[in-house]
């Protein structure tokens, strides 16, 4: 009975102020999709780190004109080092194959390079990739070693880009979030004004505070839930159209963003937005409808 009254007041309130309701839902949807994207990137950095943790290598490139005894010497040093989990020798032919695979999109470049040009190398898997600098220091001066590279450093650039994108989405989420909450506060004020008669009478006859406040708070929560559903839709569309579509090649370098990673965002977005909107509405009411 009372629930029916509250719900009819909620929808009446939203409908009476429809343009504000739409503005509220749009800004919330933008804010929440940015928040969702930010969370997704955050999650993705973890996933990538974990993925490469086991696959990252330190590559010890050898001088082009190295002789067998020096190579054996370096191999012995790798075998002796307790930082090294295992290693693999890669001769010039193998290096060429890898090169051709990596640059198969640029046939001219592939044609220009001959096996002789490429250095042979030891590809080293570390016990802990974090110790890579130690190993590099140890081997870099060694005779016969041309260069030692750490793949983690290359990956660091990817992380930096992802981190930057994440910061950007979170800033947009925050700014849009603030705008959305201001709209919530404004909507509540307008609603409180248009329902001031009912509110005054309810308070006069002793309706409990939660009952007086419920229609307003639920208006904000309703807008938040609709906003998060739109945001969720946007994120799914982004996965199919952008990540799996236009920029599919870019995302091949890293493990894919799974559907599951997006699905878990729905309850998070709904929960976060509903709670924050409800609190905003409630605080606004404290100032507009005094006991």
């Amino acid at each position, binding site marked *: 009975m*009372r629930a029916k*009254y509250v719900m009819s007041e909620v929808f009446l309130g939203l409908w009476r102020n429809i343009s504000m309701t739409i503005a509220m839902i749009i800004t919330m949807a933008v804010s929440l999709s940015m928040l969702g994207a930010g969370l997704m990137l955050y999650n993705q950095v973890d996933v990538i780190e974990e993925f490469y943790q086991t696959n990252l290598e330190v590559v010890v490139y050898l001088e082009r004109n190295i002789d067998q005894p020096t190579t054996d010497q370096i191999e012995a040093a790798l075998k002796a080092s307790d930082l090294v989990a295992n290693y693999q020798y890669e001769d010039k032919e193998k290096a060429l194959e890898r090169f051709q695979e990596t640059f198969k999109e640029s046939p001219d470049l592939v044609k220009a390079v001959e096996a002789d040009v490429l250095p042979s190398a030891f590809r080293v898997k570390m016990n802990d990739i974090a110790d890579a600098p130690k190993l590099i220091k140890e081997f870099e001066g060694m005779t016969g070693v041309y260069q030692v590279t750490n793949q983690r450093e290359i990956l660091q650039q990817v992380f930096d880009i992802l981190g930057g994108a994440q910061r950007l989405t979170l800033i947009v989420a925050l700014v849009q979030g603030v705008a959305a909450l201001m709209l919530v506060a404004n909507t509540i004020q307008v609603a409180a004004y248009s329902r001031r008669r009912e509110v005054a*009478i309810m308070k*006069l*006859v*002793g309706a*409990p*505070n939660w*009952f007086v406040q419920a229609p307003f708070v639920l208006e904000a929560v309703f807008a938040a839930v609709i906003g998060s559903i739109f945001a969720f839709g946007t994120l799914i569309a982004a996965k199919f159209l952008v990540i799996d579509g236009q920029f599919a090649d870019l995302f091949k370098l890293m493990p894919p963003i799974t559907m599951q990673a997006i699905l878990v965002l729905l309850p998070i977005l709904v929960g976060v937005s509903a709670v924050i909107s409800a609190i905003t509405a409630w605080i606004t009411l404290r100032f507009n409808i005094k*006991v």
Partner: protein
Amino acid sequence: MGHLTIRASPVRMKSRRNPCAAVTYGAESAEYATLVLEPPDRPCASAARLRLVIQLEGVTKHYPRSNRPSVEDVNVFIDKGEFVFFIGPTGAGKSTMIKLLLREEVPDKGKITVGDTDVTRLRRWKVPAYRRSIGCVFQDFRLLPNRTAAENVAFALEVIGKPRSVARRVVPEVLELVGLGGKEHRYPHELSGGEQQRVAVARAFVNRPLLLLADEPTGNLDPDTSIEIMRLLDRISRTGTTILMVTHDSNIVNQMRRRVIEIENGQIVRDQARGVYG
């Protein structure tokens, strides 16, 4: 003119008995025509004095943006079942007293007790429950325009969580009591001022309040209609409900001859049993 008995309703919150009811009823109906409403008999009045309903002790209210207190060091004690007029010039502080009693405002100094409740120390969240023991009527009726008479009265029950079955039983009863039988389904704009005020009285009374506050309830009504509303309030008063009414209508005060409290500049200048407007 027939008498309407006010039956004990299932919604009443505390059981209250009026020791005078049996004695006073019956004799005065003929006198209604000229509105000479006799105050309750002496022994009855003292019987009602068993319990104080309102106690104001040294109450002062100074609004922040006002240069003088609107209510200053007021002491008032009102018994259960009393009918009290608050009179005085505009700006004297009468409405402020009503607001203090309703806990819409809080006094700066002093203590207010209504029934068993220390209003000055009432926690915020307990205010709604407190207000359920008070009925309220205003000059401007304060009805919901998009609800019928019956729905307006039912609203007061609905928002405090009474089941619909209670409203179905009680609302027609109380509308009948205020003389609106047959007009339950009219909207406020389809009712005259007096009839709208009857709806407001019905709404205020439907929960059988301990105390009924009326701030110039006849202020928007013509003299004849005012008299009808006064009859209604008198009848409610005789059920044991304490009534505190602010008015400017000297006619009503002089004919009712009830207790009169006159206020000027926030202070009580006269407190007289069976008083006149003066």
